[in-house]
């Protein structure tokens, strides 16, 4: 019997001016399967799926839906063919209600007017059928992230989608929410839906997918049944070489001393307590992992330690000395290195060259500047050294930072901080949006720094990362540390439960 394919994309090529995002890609998905489209950032996964969804037109190639050749000029056409896409950045309209968001484009009417009651009913119906809990009359801006994602799925189902594309759906979810999402996906599969999951996470692929396709640099390099492959094989296919997942945790032998201390810190925003008498101890030769669901005060901990926000109460001590009232630049001088959470907002000035970015925050040091005049020769020499040392892939150090990939941009930020011999490193989301190869590199660098006796605070949304690197883990929930212990005493589920406030 002939296998039924929901989607067949044949010889798809998509170019953007002079870069090729997809190069003669052949991609097919069987009816009723969960298919994982795996690849690193920039491999062309999203481009391929946006082509399928009619947001891009391919330069070459053909698309078949359920065996029929189709020209998908726009999303409206894709929707009419039963395709729905849940984008990585949600396509929701914040000030409108959940129900309004769902029915947009296909609104129920009563006479000439919009029928909100009908919209609400429809949403409730779908949400009950598939276990997608959302309050239809809540405004989207008041919904938590998980609910927004459920809403996006409901949106697709409301449009009678049979083929559901999800772009990195778990990037914003906690482990428990991921489990819920997978439950929903399995239910959808039972109902006969075809699901395409764009991801770069191997674990998820192995857990939920039936088949896997790996994209690398715009071409398909591998397709397999899940049962016939392994995470190691997939990683090798994604990166193009063997990757080691293991980071050796060498405990540092010499005595650990407290370097940076946050004591009973309080901070509120709009009269809401964000930090509630929070205390942390960061010790030399140790990585302290701060685990928590985003928005529970991690950002404020970082900002308080680096001097970006003032504390209402509490104090910060660096090697026993009070630095609570020092300005950010003085704290940098005192030895607090900061790898910011948001690379593009706080880590880099994208329009500046690599060498300028490499000295930001340290530009007043006598190596780089004399009486307010920059020493360009020294800076260039320094930048070239860091570039080699940190393996930043670029033609020269005068290139704009914006021209680099996420991984290489992050290497600039990390190179800048680590090269200045800080006493403490505050590493916030150090591997966010970088590819596996660079993650491996950054992890090893952090380990090196730890072994060199630095005190490191690691804040990450990726639990795996926290568990892999940390010696000790502290769990933050609603502005308080709810648990703190040796890393070995936690597992993923215990952490997940603590992070969401359940004991």
């Amino acid at each position, binding site marked *: 019997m002939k296998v039924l394919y929901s989607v067949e994309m044949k010889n798809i090529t998509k170019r953007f001016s002079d870069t090729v995002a997809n190069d003669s890609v052949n991609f097919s998905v069987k009816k009723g399967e969960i298919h994982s489209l795996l690849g690193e950032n920039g491999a062309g996964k999203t481009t391929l799926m946006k082509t399928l969804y009619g947001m891009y037109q391919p330069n070459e190639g053909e698309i078949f839906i359920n065996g029929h050749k189709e020209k998908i000029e726009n*999303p409206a056409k894709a929707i009419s063919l039963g395709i729905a896409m849940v984008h990585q950045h949600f396509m929701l309209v914040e000030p409108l209600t959940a129900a309004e968001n769902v029915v947009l484009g296909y609104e129920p009417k009563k006479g000439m007017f919009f029928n909100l009651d009908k919209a609400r009913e429809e949403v409730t119906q779908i949400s009950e059928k598939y276990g997608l809990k959302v309050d239809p009359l809540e405004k989207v801006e008041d919904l938590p992230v998980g609910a927004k994602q459920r809403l996006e799925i409901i949106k697709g189902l409301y449009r009678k989608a049979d083929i559901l594309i999800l772009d990195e759906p778990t990037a914003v979810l906690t482990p428990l929410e991921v489990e819920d999402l997978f439950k929903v996906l399995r239910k959808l599969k039972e109902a006969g839906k075809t699901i395409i999951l764009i991801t770069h996470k191997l674990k998820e692929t192995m857990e939920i997918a039936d088949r896997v396709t790996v994209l690398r640099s715009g071409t398909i390099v591998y397709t397999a049944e899940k049962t016939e492959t392994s995470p190691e094989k997939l990683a090798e296919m994604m990166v193009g070489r063997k990757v080691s997942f293991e980071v050796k945790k060498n405990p540092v032998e010499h005595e650990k001393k407290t370097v940076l201390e946050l004591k009973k810190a309080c901070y509120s925003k709009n009269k809401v307590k964000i930090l509630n008498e929070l205390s942390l101890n960061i010790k030399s030769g140790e990585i302290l992992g701060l685990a928590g669901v985003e928005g529970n005060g991690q950002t404020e901990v970082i900002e308080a330690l680096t001097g970006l926000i003032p504390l209402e109460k509490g104090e910060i001590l660096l090697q026993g000395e009070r630095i609570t009232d020092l300005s950010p630049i003085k704290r940098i001088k005192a030895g607090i290195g900061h790898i910011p959470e948001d690379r593009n907002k706080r880590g880099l000035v994208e329009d500046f060259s690599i060498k300028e970015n490499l000295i930001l925050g340290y530009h007043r040091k006598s190596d780089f500047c004399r009486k307010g005049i920059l020493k360009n020769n020294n800076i260039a020499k320094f930048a070239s050294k860091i570039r080699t040392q940190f393996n930043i892939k670029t033609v020269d150090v005068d290139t704009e930072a914006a021209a680099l990939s996420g991984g290489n941009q992050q290497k600039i930020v990390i190179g800048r901080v680590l090269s200045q011999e800080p006493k403490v490193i505050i590493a916030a989301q150090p591997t966010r949006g970088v590819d596996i190869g660079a993650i491996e590199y950054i992890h090893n660098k952090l380990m090196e720094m730890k072994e060199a006796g630095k005190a490191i605070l690691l804040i990450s949304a990726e639990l795996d990362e926290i568990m892999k690197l940390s010696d000790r883990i502290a769990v933050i929930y609603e502005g308080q540390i709810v648990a703190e212990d040796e890393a070995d005493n936690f597992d993923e589920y215990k952490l997940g439960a603590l992070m969401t406030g359940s004991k």
Partner: protein
Amino acid sequence: METDMGALIASLLASSLRIAIPIAFAALGSAFCELVGIVNIGLEGMMLAGAFAGVWGSYITGSAYLGLLFAVIAGALFALIHAVLTIRYKTDHIISGLGVNMLSLGLTTVLLQVIWGNRGKSCEVAGMGSISLPIIKDIPFLQDIIGNISPFFYLLLLAVVISWLVLYKTVFGLRVRVIGENPQAADTLGIDVYKIQFICVILSGILSAVGGAYLSIGDINIFGRDMVAGRGFIAMAATIFGGWNPLGAFGGSLLFGFAQSLQIRLQVFNIPVQFAQMLPYVITILVLAISNKNNKGPAASGKHFKRGEV
């Protein structure tokens, strides 16, 4: 004494209303435009075009109502320029609006010279006059305010109510509000973003032009050079004050009209005229400074939307 006070208040309110009419039309237009993410500082020029076309149409045909039709067409054409530049060619919204204003001022001045041989003003044409509705003209106090008022006033009330219904109760309105907030989302749902943007920009031109026409054929029945005199910008402020809502925009226009008419009254007292004249603008600035805190405009206002970009 009491009736004197009553009459004074009535006349103050009546003149507030008259001043508010043209501003409110343009403010409605501005709301539609900004709600689809297009900033329109060309309101001023579109009003001017409407004021001119109204007089011209009335001059040619002898009918003020046909003049109004001319105004509508002129407003639509000028708005079309803005729409094509900002939506099709992604020109900066401010630059394009500025261009519309300058084009309108230049063109109407030249045409004044060509048609009436006068660079300052046209000759007097047939106007819309005023109407008094049967019941209202017998209600005390109210009769002093709107007992005898331009038909533009009733047109405005209609426009405000219909705009509100369209924006908040119809599918089209829902889509309009979505586009200004998140055009990418609208696009991924198969909504034709460009089409709705074009419709709204042109609608804004038409509404502004009707407001402009009130100044000429609804009030003094001649066209004067640059007779809009900044009302287009005041209308933008009224829209923001009103939270991009037609009812609010109407309210904002009334407030400005009131300040303006109060200012005229104040001139009889012994304070320098210049200070009195500043009042409406000072009020505008104060009101915006105070009210803007809680008012959040359309998130995608002033940004270009290009398909496929996220």
